């Protein structure tokens, strides 16, 4: 970072641009506080331990996110188990091994572009590929595979950035000592890039856990009485549960939608802890 402290230090926040900047920053912060406040206030009546276990119900007061939470946990685990190794492996291959052929360049640019494609497109593709093509039906597995297709390009793009940030001197020095390519990758490049790789994977997974549109396209259910016990059980997840409740005008469902949002954000926060633990470690080491 070459941000000079000199350009900042000693200059108080003055002048119209400074004032407008403060105002813009306040708007940004207010938006987050408002969002969090509304969710917590609205959800306070429903949030108890039963809410996290109960299935959704016709009677708003008895409804819970049990099945949806279990579904989201299944999805997270399966997507993490497939997309992370696949994406990291792809990024390492592309950055460290791949010959600069036309095919490799094409694969790279396709994956980069796929990272910018809206999630709903993955939903419709997953409907044709997994739900109907492979005959998986609207199951947890079909949902997980669709989210994997969405997550892999993100993991690849994030990890490529992490690998590119490793200075070439690391590689040259190791090669100069006679290390093989795999030794360079394993002992030099991966350890140096590890914090950014973990952060990149975490960001991609958080995106997948919060995605509602693709699961909606696959035909996720929001009214199931039992928690999914295997990947072949009907697809249900927190984001689609929120969607189902958010659009119901009846009294009581608003609170349920807020409660489910809090549950989703808690799940994401738990995943985020991995990232923060990792950040703290990074501060102690290089850079």
């Amino acid at each position: 970072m070459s941000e000079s402290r000199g350009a900042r230090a000693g200059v108080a926040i003055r002048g119209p641009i400074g004032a407008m900047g403060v105002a813009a920053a306040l708007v940004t912060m207010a938006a987050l506080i408002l969002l969090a406040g509304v969710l917590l206030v609205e959800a306070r009546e429903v949030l108890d331990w039963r809410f996290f276990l109960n299935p959704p119900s016709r009677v708003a007061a008895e409804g819970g996110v049990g099945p949806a939470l279990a579904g989201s946990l299944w999805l997270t685990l399966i997507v993490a188990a497939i997309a992370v190794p696949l994406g990291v492996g792809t990024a390492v291959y592309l950055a460290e091994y791949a010959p600069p052929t036309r095919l490799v360049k094409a694969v790279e640019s396709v994956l980069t572009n796929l990272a910018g494609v809206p999630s709903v497109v993955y939903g419709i593709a997953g409907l044709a590929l997994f739900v109907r093509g492979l005959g998986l039906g609207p199951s947890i597995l079909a949902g997980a595979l669709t989210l994997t297709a969405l997550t892999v390009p993100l993991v690849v793009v994030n990890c490529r950035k992490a690998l590119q940030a490793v200075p070439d001197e690391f590689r040259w020095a190791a090669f100069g000592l006679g290390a093989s390519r795999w030794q360079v990758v394993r002992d030099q490049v991966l350890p140096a890039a590890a914090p950014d790789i973990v952060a990149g994977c975490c960001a991609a997974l958080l995106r997948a856990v919060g995605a509602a549109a693709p699961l909606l396209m696959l035909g996720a259910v929001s009214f199931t009485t039992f928690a999914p016990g295997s990947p072949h059980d009907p697809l249900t997840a927190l984001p689609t549960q929120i969607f189902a409740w958010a659009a119901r005008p009846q009294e009581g469902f608003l609170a349920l939608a807020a409660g489910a949002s809090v549950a989703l954000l808690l799940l994401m926060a738990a995943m985020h802890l991995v990232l923060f633990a990792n950040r703290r470690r990074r501060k102690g080491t290089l850079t």
Partner: protein
Amino acid sequence: MTATALSRAARNPRSPGERFGKHVLFICAALSAVLGAAVIVVVALETFRFFGQVSPARFFGGLTWAPLAEEPGFGVLPLMAGTAQIAAGATFLALPVGLLTAVFLRYYAGGRTASILNAVVTLLAFVPAVVYGYFALNYVTPAIRSVWPGVEGFNGISACLVVGLMILPTIVLLSREALGAVPNSLLEEGVALGATRRRVLVRLVVPAAAIGIAGSVVMAAARAVGETMIVTLAAGNPTGPTWNPVEGVRTLTTFLAQASLGDIPTGSIEYGACFAVAAVLFLLTCGMHAAGGALMARGQRGKPGAVRS
């Protein structure tokens, strides 16, 4: 690892590690490529099948979109107009706030403030779209209606506002990156010449980063184009084409979300229409993403370090 061990391993290119590296990583890359290709191919194939039933001229030239009507209309233009309306509105709202926040972060905020603001922006980036949608429908819309009673329950204004909030982090983080490419010396020289800080920022620094900032805006607009849940929840899905932001808006994405709520039989014309709409969405966002990326890369050319000798 000692140097001897290193060189011993280097002499043996068939060691298990070497083979693992080459083959397993290659298989990963191949699988990723196949997965990505499968997504593209299935959308393309179903779109071509749809064009066998409905001519591309009718699809791109028609002015009504009503796949289920007795006299079905398959003109995608109304949907694209709705998408443009939401994306333009959201970008228009997010740009000033986002750019000013980025300028504030880069040139005004001190360590503590900057790190808090950074955390807030990052948190906003991680809020799931469906949560934003819930917020838009149940809080933003009633708030707008209490001020302006003529607004309908499902309306484009609420969608624009909240999609704008969703793309705000993209604009802030990417614009800050673009501003980071402007050498600090520019600011220092400007101030040394006697210009006020405001003048230097407005006349020198922001114009110098303009290409990169434009890139960040295009990237953010691409996200707005693809946004599904907020627009579906907040703007609903009226059947007719609407130009009035006070009423509901129908976009490429809301059509897909709404269609998924009914059961679409495989091979039906509506099933094909979903893929054709998805293909339009795909090409649109890919194009914008690529253009935004190219602009951002151009904006990074003057980065300090590249210039400094």
